[in-house]
């Protein structure tokens, strides 16, 4: 232990200390007046991002619950084409991806960029434009999917091309704002969070463009691009942005610097080296070239390096401070970190050919999708919001409601993931046994029912979360549960 913590004091790690200092120091009265307007602008920007994202979360997961119920009652709301499973499913996935998680993460990233650089946002107007573009894309995407315009059933890029151009413009404006804000920073060093958020946003612009251009996407060629796209969207977009939230919010909540700054940088570069190569693991045993599939498997194993390195860094930052972990924002982050660690390790195990034979194409994958996108990403966002939004607006949420939100969501996602992991295994073994196909459908029935139970708990937790967001943003201070917190400038 000792050598690491000693080395921590040297070199670029100073930035960490500086940032930590900035987080706790209170500026002089004169600069406080000067920054008052900036703080207000930043707070209203962040509030708007979080409120919009929350509305989309409610919508997209209400759709998720309906989808889950359709597995038990396929005739539920089955008379309108707009409400058929095959149209609602991409509305659910794109909605949670690009209307819930993305705006929430971009809002947090912009806030963190300004705060950790000790400056104001480069342009609040640009931030509003980004939000407008993201909402526009989500609205257009949802409506067109409901009308049956689906760009080829290519998962997570089903929106028509022009809608994805709007999404890409949103990302470009966000990247510009992030970079320009960090360029205005006080010190020389760039805080770690900004590495991850700026990197993630720039990479994602490339991902969206590669996925958009049609020239090299015919037949099997499109299969290769789709494999690349699916895990790059989750691994090079949501993952780095959520890690950026961890790197900023965790030191704040623990009131100590991140355990090892250099480990964070190491994880950054290894993540970049391995994640882009593992896309073909979505199409194992398909006619894609065997070398591409093998590369994907090898890199899926190599991903353990950044995943375990990053998780250890977060867990060591939390060590020995149980009293702080019990406070709710930190508990959300703890689940998020564990979600990252467990789900990514699960992903590695799942990528082996021997286990793909059982789990590929089954509901086990859907369990993995939710352990990652929910247990990791969504919890990270919640932790970030509960940790940072009250500091921005000066309004605290009700502690009890926050606690209930935490437990409903945690228990709900646990039921969801366990049910589908067991069910998916049963499904895969049915196929291997050579049972008639329909048996794998009837055998899943109880597990699908349990998934709905977990899903309903999750959805209830989102309603409480929405209420909490309201109290942290637009509610008048003092209204039902909203607690006025002393606004600490520079928080």
């Amino acid at each position, binding site marked *: 232990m000792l050598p690491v913590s000693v080395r921590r004091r040297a070199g670029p790690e100073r930035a960490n200390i500086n940032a930590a200092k900035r987080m706790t120091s209170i500026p002089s009265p004169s600069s406080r007046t000067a920054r008052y307007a900036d703080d207000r602008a930043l707070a209203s920007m962040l509030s708007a991002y979080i409120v919009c994202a929350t509305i989309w979360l409610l919508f997209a997961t209400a759709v998720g619950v309906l989808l889950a119920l*359709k597995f*038990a009652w*396929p005739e539920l709301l*089955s*008379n309108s084409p707009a409400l*058929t*499973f*095959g*149209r609602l*499913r991409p509305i659910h996935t794109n909605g949670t991806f690009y209307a819930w998680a993305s705006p929430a993460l971009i809002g947090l990233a912009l806030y963190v960029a300004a705060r950790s650089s000790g400056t104001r946002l480069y342009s609040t107007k640009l931030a509003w434009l980004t939000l407008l573009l993201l909402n526009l894309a989500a609205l257009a995407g949802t409506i067109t999917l409901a009308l*049956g315009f*689906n760009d*080829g*059933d*290519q998962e997570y890029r089903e929106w028509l091309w022009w809608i994805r151009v709007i999404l890409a413009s949103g990302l470009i404006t966000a990247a510009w704002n992030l970079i320009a804000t*960090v*360029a205005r920073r006080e010190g*020389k060093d*760039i805080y770690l969070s900004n*590495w991850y958020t*700026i*990197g993630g946003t*720039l*990479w994602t612009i*490339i991902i969206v463009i*590669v996925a958009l251009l049609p020239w*090299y*996407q*015919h*037949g*099997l*060629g*499109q*299969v*290769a*691009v789709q494999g*690349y*796209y*699916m895990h790059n969207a989750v691994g090079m977009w949501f993952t780095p942005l959520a890690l950026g939230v961890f790197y900023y919010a965790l030191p704040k909540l623990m009131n100590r610097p991140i355990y090892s700054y250099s480990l964070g940088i190491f994880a950054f570069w290894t993540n*970049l*080296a391995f994640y*882009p*190569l593992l*896309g073909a693991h979505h199409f194992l*045993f*398909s*006619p*894609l*070239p065997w*070398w*591409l599939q093998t590369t994907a498997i090898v890199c899926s194993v190599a991903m353990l390096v950044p995943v375990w390195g990053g998780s250890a860094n977060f867990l060591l930052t939390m060590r020995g401070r149980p009293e702080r972990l019990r406070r709710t924002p930190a508990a959300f982050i703890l689940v998020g970190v564990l979600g990252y660690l467990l789900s990514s390790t699960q992903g590695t195990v799942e990528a082996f050919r021997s286990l793909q*034979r059982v789990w590929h*194409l089954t*509901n086990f*994958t859907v369990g993995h999708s939710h352990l990652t996108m929910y247990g990791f990403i969504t919890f990270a966002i919640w932790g970030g919001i509960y940790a940072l939004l009250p500091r921005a607006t000066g309004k605290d949420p009700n502690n009890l409601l926050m606690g209930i939100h935490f437990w409903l969501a945690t228990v709900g996602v646990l039921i969801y993931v366990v049910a589908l992991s067991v069910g998916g295994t049963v499904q895969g073994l049915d*196929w*291997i046994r050579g049972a008639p*196909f*329909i048996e794998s*459908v009837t055998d899943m029935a109880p597990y699908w029912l349990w998934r709905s139970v977990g899903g309903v708990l999750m959805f209830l937790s989102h309603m409480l979360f929405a209420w909490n967001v309201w109290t942290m943003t637009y509610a008048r201070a003092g209204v039902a549960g909203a607690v006025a917190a002393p606004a600490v400038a520079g928080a």
Partner: protein
Amino acid sequence: MNKLLAIAGGATLLYAVLAVLMGVIPGIELSRVPPGPGVGPLTALEARGREVYVSEGCAYCHTQQVRPLPLDEVFGRPSAPGDYAYATPQLLGSERTGPDLSNIGARQSSEIWQYIHLYDPRAVVPQSIMPSFRWLFEVTDEAPQGLEPVPVPKPYAPAQGVVIPGPDARALVAYLLSLKQAALPGAHGDSAARAATTAAAATSMAATPATPAAPAATAAASSVFDAAEGAKLFAANCAACHGAQGAGVPGVFPSLHANPAVAASDPSEHIGAVLHGVHGKSIAGVTYAAQMPAFGPMLSDRQIAAIIDHERTSWGNHAPLVTAQDVAAARAKR
């Protein structure tokens, strides 16, 4: 600023290189894979059907990729790169809530079955959780000229009028029926050959760990009737129409309980029906609009014998058994 440039620029550049290597270049290369033998473009109607398939999101529950694994053999031969030359957008899928459809045109060739199933899947597969797609159909008082109404079984049919497939339903079914895997060079219909193509496809993809089942060993033990095998094959190939218990769907697909061909001690009609299919034959006074598909090209002699023996010994039937040799002899006669 320089540090920012180095991090942001360096990471972006590195990522761009990896994205080109892992996304764009494989895309370019594999987009050029030539069509396999017998793989051709879709007709205009089938292509329209494919668009309906995409817009209704069938691909979220159905794959179109048969893996070189024993558990996928029920869906056809392993998919080959050349199968996808005309398949844009690709519809390989990532989840198999419903069966693989790569070869559905061969596995379930009855247009009428497809229409009933799309109108309400539970009309033919009671346990199904597939959505119904009723808006692809029209309900009218009378079938217009030149269009046959879909014989939807009573409990699932509208109270009034007849069900007519709309243009999108016709296109979709034309597309589904076009999904037939072209035979790979040197392959035949029987399971030994199918296993052999599994091995061939596997080796062509370099070191596959897949171990195709040893066909020779199982084929040897043929004269004894394997009841479990017969029941399994019946469930996989026949139950969709004749029902899991052989009771059929009244007026649409005949019951096999006390069916004259099944009950007869001379099995030639029974064998002939399964090998070559049946069309327009009146059974117990009912004429069926749907066809009984021919299974000769899809199943081996041993498998057909097992299915026939399953039928001859189930649901109160007690007819003499047949052997793979009987089936082979009937095959040779035509």
